C-alpha cells in the first residue's frame, strides 16, 4: 500500500464525512422546530463540512500550489458565515419570531428593554 493509496483513503473519509454533515444539516432543517435551532443545524456544513471537503480535495490534488486557494476559500467562509448567521438571528429576534419558551436564557430582551427607557437630557 503506497502513500498515494493512504492519501486517497484519507481523502475519501474526509469527503464522506463532509457530505454526511450536509445531509445531517438538511435533516435538522426539516426536523427542528424554530429558526434558531435550524440555524444551529445550518452552521455545521457551512464550516466543518466545508473544511472537511476542502481537506479531502487538498489530499486528493496533492499540489502545494492549490493550497493557497483552498485556504482562501476556508478564510472567506469563516469570515462571512458568522455575519450571515448574526444578521438572520438578529432579524428573527427583532421581528418576534423567536419562541421564548424554547430559550434557556434570554439576555437580549433585558438589554433591549433597558435601552428603550427614556434617557435624560444630554
Amino acid at each position, binding site marked *: 500500500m503506497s502513500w498515494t493509496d493512504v492519501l*486517497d483513503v484519507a*481523502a*475519501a473519509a474526509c*469527503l*464522506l464525512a*463532509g*457530505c*454526511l454533515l*450536509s*445531509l445531517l*444539516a*438538511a*435533516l435538522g*432543517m*426539516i426536523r427542528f422546530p424554530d*429558526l434558531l435551532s*435550524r*440555524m444551529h443545524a*445550518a452552521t455545521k*456544513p*457551512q464550516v466543518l*463540512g*466545508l473544511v472537511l*471537503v*476542502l481537506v*479531502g*480535495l487538498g489530499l*486528493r*490534488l496533492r*499540489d502545494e500550489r*492549490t493550497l493557497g*486557494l*483552498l485556504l*482562501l*476559500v*476556508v478564510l*472567506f*467562509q469563516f469570515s*462571512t*458565515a458568522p*455575519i*450571515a*448567521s448574526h*444578521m*438572520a438571528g*438578529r*432579524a*428573527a429576534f*427583532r*421581528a*418576534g*419570531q423567536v419562541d421564548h419558551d424554547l430559550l434557556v436564557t434570554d439576555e437580549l430582551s433585558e438589554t433591549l428593554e433597558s435601552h428603550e427607557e427614556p434617557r435624560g437630557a444630554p
Partner: protein
Amino acid sequence: MTWVLGICSAFLVVAAVLVVVRITRGPTMLDRIVAFDVLVSATICALGLEAAVHQHTHSLPILAALALLGFVSTASVASLTGGRQGVEEEDR
C-alpha cells in the same frame, strides 16, 4: 474513488431535496433564507467533491466566489425584513 462519488452524491441529493422542501414550506422568509444558505453550502460540497474525484482544479475559483458571496443574500434579506413587514404569520 467511484463509490465515494456515488455515496457522497446520494447524501448531497437527499440533502438538497430536504432543503428545498424546507424552502417551500418554511413559514417565514428567514427560515427560507437560512435553508438557502444550507443549499449553497451543499453546492460548495458538490463542486469540491467533483473536483476531488476527478482531480482537476477548474472549479476552485467558483468555490472561492461562492464562499465569499454566499452571505450576501442572507444579509440583504435579513436587513430588509428587519421590522415585521414581509414576515408571514406562522401556519404550520
